[in-house]
């Protein structure tokens, strides 16, 4: 019977993987991932530039601020860790000539002058709209320049001026031993990095449920189920579907990682100054910020726990999909019946990406124990320190017990359901089958 289980699993896997659809979908995924990772090079190849160098011409009618402004632009660029280069040059030509020059080249003209109250004012002239980030940089630099000029005009001595201009020194102290002093930074990570990480999991769950439903319904609607079940037990058949679907999604996840590796390799070849060894620096502030949160030290236990939760959750989703599919006779019925499960998964996804907003909520802690949601929510809460290892262990135990319960009652339902073609009173039939003694 064991060999028939593996044979069925193998046939089911081949049916999913040896299709034009699978090859086409993976080619598209490969292209998308490679394209996404190398988007700057691609745009550059077609004549665009993310970090196009910008030239600013300064017409300083005050004869006081050009150097100050240039210094402030440099400081602002450094503070936001921008790779963009902005060159500031001073000009003495008349404004009409400079406007012509701005029209011909993609330059920005800034004219500094004093108003009637001797306050610094600036006129920013460009041919077209200035990119938002560049405009913010200029605006920030202009404000800083104005402050410095006005302070210089006051009677404050230079030392006092330097003291006033320097940023405030913040010392953080957190009294709760459980909380990291980097947790505030973690909120930012949760809203940016985590949604990207769990999106593939959410997609794989959808794949998993749909695949099991489609395959079981195909066998039911063609009545080949009767021949199959006359040769292998419903239990063997059930587990072959669960196994093949889970092997498929795990393989697909590994393929996604492989595609990401290819994308990074391509980037290391085509992007100047990029190499795999300097990946941390290359990916930039995101990875540095993650490292700064102290999460790297926690990964040793977060990753294994998250993987256990993930595998158990995939199992739970596939068990439910199999059980529900056995009670339906076509894909339309299955789509309807699996919708609530998908909504629960979606709720888990949104709760996970918004987990930083529910600091201290008991409801969120309890929800993190709920099967289907726990694989998405618990790791998120663990990362931001809202729950501990004990909570994850509870989630795992709850999920394992839930899976046992699903297998125990699900097999009874499956055995009755797969040979039943009735479309009436599905829930009543389901509960009746679950109550059967054997």
């Amino acid at each position: 019977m064991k060999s028939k289980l593996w044979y069925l699993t193998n046939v089911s896997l081949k049916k999913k993987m040896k299709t034009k659809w699978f090859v086409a979908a993976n080619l598209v995924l490969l292209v998308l991932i490679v394209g996404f990772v190398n988007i700057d090079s691609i745009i550059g190849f077609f004549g665009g530039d993310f970090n196009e160098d910008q030239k600013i011409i300064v017409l300083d009618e005050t004869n006081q601020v050009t150097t100050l402004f240039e210094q402030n632009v440099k400081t602002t660029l450094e503070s936001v860790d921008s790779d963009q280069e902005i060159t500031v040059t001073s000009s003495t030509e008349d404004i009409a000539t400079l406007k012509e020059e701005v029209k011909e080249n993609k330059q920005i003209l800034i004219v500094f002058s004093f108003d009637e109250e001797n306050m610094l004012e600036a006129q920013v002239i460009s041919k077209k709209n200035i990119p938002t980030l560049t405009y913010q940089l200029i605006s920030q630099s202009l404000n800083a320049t104005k402050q410095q000029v006005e302070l210089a005009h006051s009677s404050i001595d230079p030392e006092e001026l330097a003291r006033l201009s320097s940023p405030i020194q913040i010392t953080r102290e957190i009294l709760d031993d459980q909380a990291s002093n980097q947790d505030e930074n973690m909120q930012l990570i949760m809203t940016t990095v985590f949604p990207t990480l769990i999106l593939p999991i959410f997609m794989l769950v959808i794949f998993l449920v749909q695949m099991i439903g489609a395959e079981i319904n195909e066998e039911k609607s063609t009545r080949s189920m009767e021949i199959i079940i006359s040769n292998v037990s419903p239990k063997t058949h059930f587990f072959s579907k669960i196994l093949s679907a889970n092997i498929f999604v795990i393989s697909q996840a590994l393929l996604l990682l492989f595609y990401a590796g290819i994308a990074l390799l391509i980037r290391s070849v085509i992007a100047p100054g990029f190499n795999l060894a300097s990946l941390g620096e290359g990916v930039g502030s995101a990875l540095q910020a993650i490292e700064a949160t102290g999460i790297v030290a926690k990964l040793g236990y977060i990753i294994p726990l998250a993987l256990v939760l993930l595998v158990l959750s995939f199992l739970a989703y596939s068990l439910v999909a199999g059980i529900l599919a056995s009670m339906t006779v076509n894909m339309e019925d299955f789509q309807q019946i699996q919708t609530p499960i998908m909504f629960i998964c979606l709720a888990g996804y949104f709760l996970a990406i918004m987990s930083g907003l529910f600091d201290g909520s008991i409801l969120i802690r309890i929800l993190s124990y709920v099967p289907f949601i726990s694989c998405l929510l618990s790791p998120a809460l663990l990362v931001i320190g809202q729950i501990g290892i004990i909570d994850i262990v509870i989630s795992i135990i709850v999920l394992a017990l839930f899976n046992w319960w699903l297998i125990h009652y699900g097999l009874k339902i499956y055995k009755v359901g797969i040979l039943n073609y009735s479309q009436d009173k599905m829930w009543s039939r389901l509960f009746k089958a679950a109550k059967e003694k054997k």
Partner: protein
Amino acid sequence: MLKVEHISKSYGSLKAVDDLSFTVQDGEIFGLLGENGAGKTTTFRIIMGLLDADEGSVTLNGKKIDYSITDQIGFVTEERSLLLKMTVKEQLIFYGVLKGMSEEEVLKEMDHWLERFEIPDYKDRKIKELSKGNQQKIQFISAVLNHPKLLILDEPFTGLDPINVQLLKEAVWDLQKEGCSIIFSSHQMEHIELFCEKLVLLVHGKSILEGYVKDIKHDYAKKNILIQGDMKKSDLEKIDGVISVVKEPQDYQVKIKNDEVVPHVFEAIKKYKIRKFVVEEPTLNEIFIAKVGEANEK
């Protein structure tokens, strides 16, 4: 030998099969008849082990039917049970391996059967591309690839033209010669008459008629007399014991209550010029209609 002993199966308040018993010897073709919903499919499912009977037992050569011996059973379902996206070869390998055969054995048998059914070039065609008749042939092949000891045929001739019906009939007879026990279900009574030595007739899950076909026909009281002559239909209708008279192109078909009416009919028409007077047994179709009708009236 297949032995079905006192099996019953209920779905809620509906008794699908009610105390049904029969045996099918090796090399015997057995007919399971009944209207739609009479319990045939449930009986087949119980025999195949797909359903557990509430009561009774089913054994094949003395062994209870379970997954250890289902490899010895072939099953042709009433509706096509084929995976439409597979090729013929993939489908036959799939079902063959599930029956415990190796791929090599399946391929060898497949070549033999495709050749026999005159579709040797269909190996790599998808099932969905085949006509209904050819799909039915593939379904039959998938059921007999493993030389089963028991073959269940539920409406096996559906969708086949007369030439292909003949091909399938010969295949069934060959399997019978190999000693395969065959259970046959069909709504076409001429097929039952042609194939089956024994039968059971189910009404509402209960057997109302069982035994050897020839005995059933012989014991059935109502006979038919085929008459050719210059008498009128009304002359025949007024004879005592005559149930009905049907004017056929050549003959009058006279249904009579029992054998004892035959001399009375002959006596009444001997004054006419008689060219034909043949007493024949009723068709299985007539017995089926009459028996099912009686049972439903009860």
